[in-house]
């Protein structure tokens, strides 16, 4: 059915967003808060230059996380282990990256590489377990997350921590050659001058490149064809020559490699060291963004920006006596809503196509008979 693609990729998320807004509004009303005022406050605060920059900064790691999850989803593989992978990767990369100093570009690239390798290896364990022992990746990746938390805590507190004796518990600072420059100079070209302290992290560029690579890999390459075929119809993919075990392993490794980069925006552009309160939860939110964006880079970008906007603009709610957590409800509802709405619309489109086909058959057999 023509327009079917449009309906499912665009209309479905939009409807889901509308439903979620509705529910959030109802919830706010239930606690005696006027939703419109709240939204207005959020919008006003959220659209300042500094807020928009913060929105993008928050969106970038979510986007990368969604890419990692999305590539797994494309073949029906549920990588819930992005969370553990990126934390471990950030820790190890921060520690090792602070041990040396080489020319800037190489330094940054080497740190990225280390992070990717750690992430790939960690998620690869789950891939190996699935291929060799048939362990379902949902459970194994979740278990590995918890093990990663423990492992990183152990490594951090016992080995990787810098002995400064000070109050800050962190790894050693990465030398400046390992810093990613901020994007503010570029913004300056367009006449945008944010306040001091508000920096657009340079990793944005790398994230965009990742998105483009994702698109080409998944939609244009032979590997992507095999990937998508495995997700659509695994027996057919097998019969067409795809080796399922190799496919699973490769996908988990790629997914883990991307996952390793989730913390790099913060590490290379902001904190330059692994601190005890390094941002967490990006792995899980990435799943939400991937579902919202239907595993499609453009959709996931929009989803990431949306979540980033919500996270940032909700800060104002504290000052206005509105529970900031309305945003978490919204985010939770939108994920469930989008999967339900997508199913409904998908089925409608499907029914139309099949009905059209049935009609065509009747005409066809009548033509043959006459």
């Amino acid at each position: 059915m023509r327009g079917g693609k449009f309906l499912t990729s665009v209309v479905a998320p939009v409807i889901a967003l509308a439903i979620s807004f509705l529910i959030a509004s109802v919830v706010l009303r239930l606690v005696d808060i006027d939703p419109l005022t709240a939204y207005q406050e959020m919008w006003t605060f959220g659209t300042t230059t500094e807020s928009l920059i913060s929105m993008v900064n928050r969106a970038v790691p979510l986007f990368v996380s969604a890419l990692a999850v999305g590539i797994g989803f494309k073949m029906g593989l549920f990588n819930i282990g992005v969370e553990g992978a990126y934390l471990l990767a950030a820790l190890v990369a921060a520690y090792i990256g602070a041990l040396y100093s080489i020319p800037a570009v190489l330094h940054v690239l080497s740190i990225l590489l280390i992070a990717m390798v750690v992430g790939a290896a960690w998620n690869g364990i789950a891939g190996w377990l699935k291929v060799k022992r048939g362990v379902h990746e949902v459970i194994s990746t979740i278990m590995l997350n918890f093990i990663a938390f423990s492992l990183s805590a152990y490594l951090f507190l016992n080995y990787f921590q810098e002995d400064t004796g000070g109050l800050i518990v962190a790894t050693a600072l990465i030398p400046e050659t390992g810093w990613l420059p901020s994007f503010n100079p570029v913004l300056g070209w367009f006449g945008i001058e944010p306040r001091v302290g508000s920096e657009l992290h340079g990793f944005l560029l790398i994230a965009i490149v990742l998105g483009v690579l994702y698109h080409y890999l998944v939609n244009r390459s032979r590997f992507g064809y095999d990937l998508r075929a495995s997700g659509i119809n695994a027996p057919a993919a097998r019969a067409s020559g795809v080796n399922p075990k190799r496919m699973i392993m490769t996908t988990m490794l790629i997914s883990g490699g991307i996952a390793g980069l989730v913390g790099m925006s913060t590490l290379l552009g902001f904190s330059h060291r692994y601190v005890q309160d390094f941002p967490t939860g990006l792995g899980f939110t990435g799943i939400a963004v991937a579902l919202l964006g239907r595993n499609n880079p453009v959709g996931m970008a929009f989803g990431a920006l949306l979540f980033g906007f919500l996270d940032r603009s909700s800060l104002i709610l504290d000052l206005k006596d509105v529970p900031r957590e309305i945003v978490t409800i919204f985010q939770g509802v939108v994920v469930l809503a989008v999967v339900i709405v997508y199913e409904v619309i998908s089925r409608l489109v499907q029914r139309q196509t099949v009905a059209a086909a049935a009609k065509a058959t009747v005409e066809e057999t009548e033509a043959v008979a006459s």
Partner: protein
Amino acid sequence: MAQESAIHLSGVTKRYPGVVANKDVEFDVGVGEVHAVVGENGAGKSTLMKIIYGMVRPDEGIIRIRGKEVHFRSPKDAIDAGIGMVHQHFMLADNFTVLENIILGSEPMNGVQIDFQTASDRIKELGEKYGLRLDPGTRVETLSVGERQRVEIIKVLYRGAQILILDEPTAVLVPQEVDDLFDSIRELKAEGETVIFISHKLDEVLTIADSITVMRAGETVGTTTPDQIDAGQLAEMMIGSELPTPETRTSTVQDEVVLEVVELSLQSEDDRDLLSDISFTIHKGEIVGIAGVEGNGQAPLVDSLVGLEATATGEVHLAGEDVTNDEAKDRRAAGIGLIPEDRQRQGLLLPSPLWENAALGHQNGPPYAKGPWIDKKGARAQTEEIIRRFAVKAPGPDVPATALSGGNQQKLVVGREVMANPKVLIAAQPTRGIDIGAQAAVWEELKAARQAGMGVLLISADLDELIGLSDTIHVLFEGELVAELDPAEVTPEILGSHMTGAKTEAES
């Protein structure tokens, strides 16, 4: 004075979007009668039975059971009215025992618990009465096809069915099992049961039925009895035109061997023999047919040849090259084509556009791929060519595969495989479940492929198709090739007895 009919339908109509499945159907079955309903695929037989069984509500018309008008809202209503249906595709839970499958939904109770003893006794009782012996405690997974059918029949008798509907019951049986089934049907009739028997196998129908109703394109064409009609006339009523027959022709078999299989063996995970020492050859320009009852090793054979079974032993040589250790991707590239027996499961990506479906199995080289990238332009062009050459009724290469009818989907699959010019084409049940026009087209294409020098391995449950198309026929029984036969001399009876292993037993 006319006796009260067991079932009487009048003016029954059922519409679906785009098609009228049943149109103004008149249908009458006498009590204690064995009544056959015949018709081609899509004639409306299944819909009619679903209406009688309460699975589907008619849009118009009256249904009377033993004279009383009924309005079934669900199968439970039909069951309560004494109607039982044995489906063509068995509805049995593999992990459940025979007993659990039979009593489900009608469990005998002992207080709050299930009364397993009573159930077990009743099942054994029914088994004795109708010659359908079964052990209630066995898990269904371990039963043969014929035994599973017995479970299905007992399932309906257990619920006190007086009217039995058997939907294509002989589709998966060999002639000897068919005889056993017919004995049971006669037994049922003797006990006063009414039996409706749906089939498209005219010889069987003429053997067992008291009366026959013919359906075509959703309407009842007429009702007759076996002494008034013969198979040819019945067929004409069913189809309305001439039967397409697979014909004999001059041999195109060349000397060059294009596929050689030597002692191919495969065991399942629990060490059962799926294939034992399979050896055969296919020459250029030859169609080799494999006959056999479903479940005797056809699927493992196809999977092993395509390269999906890593644990298979033996040798496979493709045009002289040893591909035994190659995996599926390499074997497909080396020239093994596949028309899978379940196109939706193994042959198509239903939500994807046709050009991506055309690439399936060939996505690693031209015209579908260039280097590491998919060549969308090349793929679309090739798909358009397939659509044109194989008369696939589709608006273009960008529509999803679900937009095509079953017959057109199959034509697409056949087309993409043939156009890839394989050395050997494996065709498993290539005309299953498609309309007559598409069936004829597929037969033509297979013959053309043979003419062009392709070797074809034809695996089919349709004995007439096998006999008509093959140059040689092997019989697959319990994972072994038990006979090699000449299609010109063989008859369905000889084939059937090999397929059940009876002949080999007699010979030994």
